[in-house]
């Protein structure tokens, strides 16, 4: 009886305020799309960081076969040169370098052919076109200059490169994009709260006869307010579902089908990440509706 009655009231309310309900759905849809986009950008940043950022900070490229660099005058880096560099890393830079990975030409070629099975720009490459390198993880990434000073110019070292710097600008861009998205999301969420508040107020106003009688015959507060609460919550959750659908389509067409086809060397967010984000978005929608409903209803349908 109760459930059926509340459901009936709910449907009447949704129908009576159809245009407002639709606007609530749209506003939550747009705002949660921005929230989700910010979330996905952060996920993407996290994935990029996981892949390299924490592993590779400084690459010490050793001389390849034919290098124009003066430190490579003797040709390809010899095992003795490698051993001496390794010694320097252990002793002089022992405090700065936390971890050393050695990547031989063969390792590099393996990684390369995995990514470009057809060769680089149509040219098939061999193991000798590759370059061995030391990958260093620094105790303090800010101390790159010290490492650079010590290693640059040593025989057998072609180039010392702070890879973090390359990624930093990318991460900066991604972070700014996600901040922008979060900012827009904040503004839209505020708009959503205000709109839900207005909608519920209108709904409560158009049903004040009913609620007035309900109060007089002793209906409980929850019973009077539940249809209104559900009205806001359902509209907001529909908006959240639309946002999830929109994000999923966006990720599928923009990232999975297009971006990862053209730039395949990084891992990208996928539909799975959108689905992992979905409960959060629905929870936000629900909270949004619940908060604005409680504020409004306590003012307009108080016993």
């Amino acid at each position, binding site marked *: 009886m109760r459930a059926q*009655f509340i459901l009936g009231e709910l449907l009447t309310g949704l129908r009576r305020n159809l245009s407002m309900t639709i606007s609530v759905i749209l506003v939550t849809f747009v705002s949660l799309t921005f929230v989700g986009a910010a979330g996905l950008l952060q996920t993407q940043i996290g994935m990029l960081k996981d892949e390299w950022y924490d592993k590779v900070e400084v690459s010490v490229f050793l001389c390849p076969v034919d290098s124009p660099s003066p430190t490579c005058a003797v040709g390809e880096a010899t095992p003795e040169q490698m051993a001496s560099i390794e010694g320097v890393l252990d002793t002089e830079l022992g405090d700065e370098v936390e971890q050393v990975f050695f990547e031989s030409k063969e390792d590099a070629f393996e990684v390369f052919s995995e990514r470009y099975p057809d060769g680089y720009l149509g040219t098939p490459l061999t193991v000798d076109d590759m370059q061995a390198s030391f990958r260093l993880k620094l105790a303090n990434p800010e101390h790159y200059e010290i490492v650079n000073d010590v290693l640059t110019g040593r025989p057998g070292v072609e180039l010392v490169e702070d890879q973090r710097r390359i990624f930093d600008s990318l991460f900066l861009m991604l972070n700014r994009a996600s901040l922008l998205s979060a900012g827009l999301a904040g503004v839209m969420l505020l708009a959503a709260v205000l709109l839900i508040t207005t909608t519920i107020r209108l709904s409560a106003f158009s049903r004040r006869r009913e609620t007035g*009688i309900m109060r*007089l*015959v*002793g*209906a*409980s*507060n929850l*019973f009077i307010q539940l249809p209104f609460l559900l009205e806001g919550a359902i509209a907001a959750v529909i908006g959240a579902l639309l946002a999830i659908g929109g994000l999923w389509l966006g990720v599928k067409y923009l990232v999975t089908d297009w971006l990862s086809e053209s730039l395949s060397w990084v891992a990208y967010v996928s539909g799975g990440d959108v689905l992992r984000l979905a409960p959060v978005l629905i929870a936000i929608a629900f909270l949004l509706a619940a908060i604005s409903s409680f504020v409004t209803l306590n003012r307009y349908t108080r*016993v």
Partner: protein
Amino acid sequence: MIRFENVTKVYARGARPALDDVSVEIERGEFVFLVGASGSGKSTCLHLILREERPTRGKVFVAGRDLSSLSSWKVPSLRRQIGVVFQDFRLLPNKTVFENVAFALQVIGKPRHTIAITVPEVLEMVGLGGKEKRRPHELSGGEQQRVAIARAFVNRPPILLADEPTGNLDPTTSLGIMRLLDRINRTGTTVVMATHDEEIVNQMRKRVIELSTGELVRDQSRGGYGAQGTVRPAPAAPAVAAPGHEPDDGTSPVVLDPPSAQAEVSAGTQER
């Protein structure tokens, strides 16, 4: 059943009190007229009984509860003890007569089969048998008020408040409504009716409480609309007025109800 102890109600700070140190007691089963000019505090009294307002000073007791210490989540259960009827009926225009009455039971969570039994019973009692499917605009004013009374009484509350229930009705129709309220009173329901209707008050010869600018100026058993006969002192100690035990002052009240109707009502009550 209803007791006011030195109740003062001030709406706006500094304004004249709407009720000024009013003490009055209404016993179970009484029929009381609340009379006075507009702004005399009649409606404030009813609002205080319903706990739509809280007294500024003093205490209000209704059905054994001290309303000043009643927490707000218990207010619904208080209101289930009180039926209310208004001058403007307050029916829901898009619901039928049956649905209007059933609404009062639905919203307090009564099961469907109870509603299916109780609603036709109460509609029969108020004289609207056979009009269940009509909508309020298809009914006369008197019939609409009967629907409103049915809605107020369907839950068999021990107290019925009526705020000028005959204010919008012609004298003949009003008489019918008064008969109905009298019948409800005879089932043991305490009835408090705020009214301006001189004729009705004079005819009924029930207890009359008169307010004037927020003060209790008269509390008279078997009184008329204007001051006449025995007038109790204004800030009366709780008046114990048991209906039927008053000495007849000669003006015998109009008999509004044949005894058979009363039997019919009480039989209906026992069934439940």
